[in-house]
């Protein structure tokens, strides 16, 4: 860990000002950033603590949705009565992640910005295009057990590791961002994270000095909410594959199927075509298979992670079967 200055702005304007320069990084819960600083993966000269900016509230919006402050802790969000009643997929996803102690510190905005768990990213003596552009990718020919099968590039096969954002993607939530030079902009969470392309150093659309202020959920819908996380041990492990599903069946046909996937890509994976395929159809094993085909159409394994392709297909089928009460 390198020496760094610690700054605590009291206003958003001041926070913008402090975080625009390249040598600064904003910190909220610090559950990911501090570990990376100890490993010297992250080496900010200034750490800008945004915990004095409020932004902890969870409140209803004018159109019946819910606005979750960027500094609301994961524990607060998962325990919020409205989240539990109307958006259980979000509570379930959060509770499937990390440990109680980490969730007590982790925040909404920070969790969206969580960095990959790729082994080569966290080891500064190994090549990694995300950490050090142009240095190469150790994972492609290395240990790629945890890595992506969708949306990869020759530069990077890392995954976005979080759970909360996968549920937010299924919910079609919006990320509210305060920018230094304008007022506020809103980005659908499905567009917030980026695919690696040839700039894997960019995880998401945030520009320098921008600060996430909230995540807004649309009006709740009546549907079954499931979050399924597949992993080797039953807690404190990142997903091999996860599925967030908001599914409703009416009169024997699927009326809604909003699905998002974790563990498969550099971002929570949402494919609008799945919903189009599933809605209006009677649930069946064959239909879920077709959905799997569509989801994994462009999938590519890197040896060690080939298993994720059949695993994603099977998990999708299991979740859809449970959500639609179909025996397969």
């Amino acid at each position, binding site marked *: *860990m*390198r*020496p760094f200055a610690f700054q605590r702005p009291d206003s958003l304007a001041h926070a913008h000002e402090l975080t625009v320069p390249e040598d600064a990084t904003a910190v909220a819960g610090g559950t990911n950033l501090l570990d990376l600083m*100890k*490993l*010297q993966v992250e080496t900010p000269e200034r750490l800008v603590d945004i915990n004095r900016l409020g932004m902890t509230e969870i409140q209803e919006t004018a159109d019946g949705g819910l606005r979750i402050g960027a500094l609301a802790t994961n524990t607060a969000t998962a325990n919020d009565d409205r989240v539990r009643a109307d958006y259980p997929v979000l509570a379930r996803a959060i509770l499937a992640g990390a440990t109680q102690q980490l969730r007590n510190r982790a925040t909404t905005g920070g969790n969206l910005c969580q960095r990959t*768990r790729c*082994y*080569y990213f966290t*080891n*500064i*003596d*190994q090549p990694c295009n995300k950490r050090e552009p142009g240095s190469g990718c*150790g994972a492609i*020919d*290395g*240990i790629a*057990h945890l890595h992506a099968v969708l949306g990869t590039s020759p530069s990077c096969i890392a995954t976005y590791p979080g759970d909360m954002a996968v549920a937010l993607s299924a919910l079609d939530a919006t990320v509210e961002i305060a920018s230094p030079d304008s007022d506020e902009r809103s980005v659908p969470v499905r567009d917030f994270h980026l695919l690696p392309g040839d700039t894997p150093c960019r995880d998401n659309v945030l520009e320098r000095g921008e600060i996430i202020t909230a995540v807004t959920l649309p009006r709740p819908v009546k549907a079954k909410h499931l979050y399924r996380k*597949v*992993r*080797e*041990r*039953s*807690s*404190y*492990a990142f997903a*091999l*594959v996860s599925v967030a599903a908001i599914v409703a069946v009416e009169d024997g046909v699927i009326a809604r199927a909003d699905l998002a996937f974790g563990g498969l890509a550099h971002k929570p994976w949402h494919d609008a075509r799945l919903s189009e395929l599933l809605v209006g159809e009677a649930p069946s094993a064959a239909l879920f298979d077709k959905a799997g085909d569509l989801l994994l159409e462009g999938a590519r394994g890197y040896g060690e992670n080939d*298993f994720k392709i*059949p*695993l994603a297909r*099977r*998990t999708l*089928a*299991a979740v859809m079967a*449970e959500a639609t009460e179909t025996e397969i």
Partner: protein
Amino acid sequence: MSAHLKQDEPVTSNRLDGMKQGIVGQPLSRVDGLAKVTGTAPYAAEYKIDNVAEGVLVTAPITRGEVTSIDKDSVLSMPGVLAVLDDERLTTRAAQGTANEAPKQDPATVCYWGQPIAVVVAETFEQARDAAKHLKVEYRVHEGAPLDPHQVAPEEQEDETVNQGDLDAAMARAAHTVDVEIATEGHASAAMEPHAAIAEWRDDKLTVYASLQMPNYNIAELADSLGMEESNIRLVSRYVGGGFGSKLGISEETVAAAIAARELGQPVRVVMSRQQVFQCIMRRSETTQKLRLASDEEGKLDGFAHHALVSNLPGEEFAEPVLQSSHFLYGGENRQLKLEVARIHRMTAGSVRAPGEAVGMPALEVAMDMLAEKSGVDPVELRLRNIPDRNPEEDLPFSSHKLADCLRQGAEKFGWDSGPRKPRQQREGEWWIGTGMASAARVHNVGEAKAHVTLKSDGTAVVQSDMTDIGTGTYTIVAQIAGEMLGIPIEKVLVELGDTKHPRGPGSGGSWGAASIGSAVYVACEALREKLAHRAGTSETELDLRDGSVVGGNSLVELLDGEDISEVGHYEPGEIADSHTASGFGAFFAKVRVNRFTGETRVDHMLGAFGFGRVLNEKTARSQCLGGITWSIGVALTEALLFDPVDGHLVNCDLAEYHVPVNRDVQDVDVMMMEERDPVASPIQAKGIGELGMCGGAAAIANAIYNACGARLFQYPMTPDRVLAALPD
């Protein structure tokens, strides 16, 4: 005064059973528990020493080669940096357990990725860590270091080789055969407390506070590393936050702290990062094992073969002793055993919890399950039929043998269904449910030990030894034995461990600590009892002590009459160790769920039934068994060291990515301990306990996975991807 016992004969009756207080065996809570939970028990890095400088090891990011230059000036001007040391005495690997000599030195020669090559010392830890990352080092890389154990010609460990009878003929004429290859991956000790040391010099005297399992050997290893006399060194390891083999031998941080403190003329602390502990401390070797079993119609073995390939660095003597219990667990006239070592450039392989059986038994017991299926014999019954009367290779008697009792009583308590066994008989929703079982075996070890016991004139006692308590309960069982023998409650026994100013204990390792130090304490107390008996005008065998008094007579205070009496008890294993085969035995039963979509396995229930001689403390013994079963779950389902195929570096080097079981993975666990006295194992008739709990348990889970879903896996750990790949359609 000292009393010596070299055990050449069985000890068939024992003082401990005739005592009036009945303290030994009681499920007492640890006497050091309060200090630990209140944070007042100091671990190695926590001793309050003035003016301590902080050292951080610099490690090599190459697999094999030489350090050609270190540009010390590249960091010496950084804030707080005091020194960069690349002293040729710095060690580059941990010493193997009981080595008693310096481990490999010469930091300029790199043999594995992550090897320490230097130490940077600064005023603060953060400064030292930053400088260690910035130090400019140049290397000459020797390309082509072999990394894959299957790509080199292995060396046979000839002393392990057995060729008895004609195995091929046995296989050819057998009614049932099994011929299978099973692989296990590397494991890390992953002890909670990282490796740490604070070294302090006073003139030519060195004191090191370190996290060590065996100060009795470590003192010689450190003296040899530094080229100095043992008598000038004091090691202090009063509390150790877990070892599991990783702290058996002296390791890099301790030697580096000692050298740096000398050089700087001030105390130096060196603490390894979690990543460094993973990358440069002992790994358990991966193994590839081939098992061949030949039986008659009824499943009785006629042929038994177990071959294993393990790996280590060039020049390391240790070879994971995979076959250790295979030599005697089951009968079979025709036998072939062979252990081979591949020389590759991953970090040192050495002792990790239950070296040998931890991976040998999980393979053997899957093969036995396959034989049970082929022969149509119930798996429990199959084991019972194959228990030999004597060691089948050396024709030696067993010291004691509780396998049959463990199998029968374990099966009964678990509710084992001995009816026909077929996979996929039970399903609950997405989950297939199945059961499996396996035998447990772990060779029993003992080591020479001394303990100094003083009975003070105020009726309290002090026991001193450099023996360690690595979280196992040594403080407590030592207090129990001394209290029992001297007729005083354990609150009146002060136990001082982990300091080489005291007599040499056995150290903690190989599950030998309790039986060995316990015997030394026992021997000392017997001698003290002789003295007390003399004062009381009776004989030692007639002396009944209870609650600080002779029963019906004087108090100890009166007998001692203002005088302290003390003895050093000295226990040595004797000829009896060579004339018997001594082992702990047991049986595991498991009930698991396997998700039919995702291949995830969860262990709903495990039962372990164990026979390991006298139980000194039912609570700490049970805790050891629970720990072993937790390791079993890890071996079966999650634990694997992952090495990069290009440069051999360990990629999953922290506790987030190296998956030990978490609380939620360890559900309903039952432990049964058989009442037993082993007259051969030790003078106190106790055997090793700690490691037995993981010697075979993984196979009970593997066999339950097969019973649940029909996936027979030949590779541990049985992760979801592997289960899915093995699922029948």
